[in-house]
């Protein structure tokens, strides 16, 4: 059982920006979470192709990595992004929902290290990957 799972769902529910983008959280295990987001025409970055903007993907990446930190087995109280790097591999297919999976793969007393991958329906080819360092607030 993931110690902070309830807190993680609570975080997402109380986060106005997550609601604005329609993010849905699924806690998978210790330090491992996934968030999905439906396609919406207001997220489009290129009207000629209907491809969503990278900025919508970065919100998903940042949230997912942060929640992965909260869900680490050491159960941090809170976290904040120090830095985030995103690589865009290919455009997300228009009209398809996207899903980000993030893991907190290393934890120290004060810092958490995370990485994440975003896919659309085709889970064999990533849309984008990210890595980020986060602050850790403990009890």
């Amino acid at each position, binding site marked *: 059982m993931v110690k902070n799972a309830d807190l993680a769902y609570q975080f997402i529910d109380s*986060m106005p920006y997550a609601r604005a983008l329609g993010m849905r959280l699924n806690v998978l295990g210790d330090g491992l979470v996934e968030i999905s987001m439906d396609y919406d025409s207001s997220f489009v970055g290129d009207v000629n192709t209907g491809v969503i903007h990278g*900025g919508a993907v970065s919100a998903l990446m940042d949230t997912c990595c942060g929640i992965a930190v909260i869900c680490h087995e050491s159960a941090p109280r809170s976290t904040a992004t120090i830095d985030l790097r995103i690589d865009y591999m290919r455009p997300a297919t228009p009209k398809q929902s996207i899903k980000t999976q993030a893991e907190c793969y290393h934890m120290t007393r004060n810092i958490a290290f995370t990485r994440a991958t975003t896919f659309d329906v085709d889970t064999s080819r990533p849309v984008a990957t990210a890595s980020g360092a986060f602050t850790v607030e403990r009890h």
Partner: protein
Amino acid sequence: MPSSNATYAHDVKKIRDLALKALVEDVPFIQFLGVYFERCGDELTGVLPYSEKFIGNPELPAIHGGVTAAFLEVTSLITLSWTIFLREMNLNTNEIDNTSVGGSMRLPKTIDFSVDYLRSGLPVDAYARATISRSGRRYASVQVEAWQDTRHKLFAHGTCHFLMPEQSK
């Protein structure tokens, strides 16, 4: 349609404003964020008017890191596209007319984007300015910084790499 130098000079401001408007209004996600740009000559400043939907941490409250990242990326992309537009406008002085600034402009594609969060984003308006470090035929590197109440106290800065659009003939 070739135009005389006098007409061209007279229209530069109008064309620049039209081009900027077209660039920004053509992108639904920029409209979703409410980001707009203030232009002083060839320099752009991105403005992100505060909205309650941007909150990521209601306790502080603080703007969501995803909003900050998107704002920096949008500012980088529009500033770079704007620079490309100005360059093409200077190269093709005789071919500028209002129809060339419509929604057909091809935008650069983001290759990667890296953002440092220096302070938590306050629930107020934010501003950002991007600098083109290098803009070649195929790739561009752009630095971007963002602030809120105080210009020299950045709350985030970032680096963006872009794949340039095919050059128009």
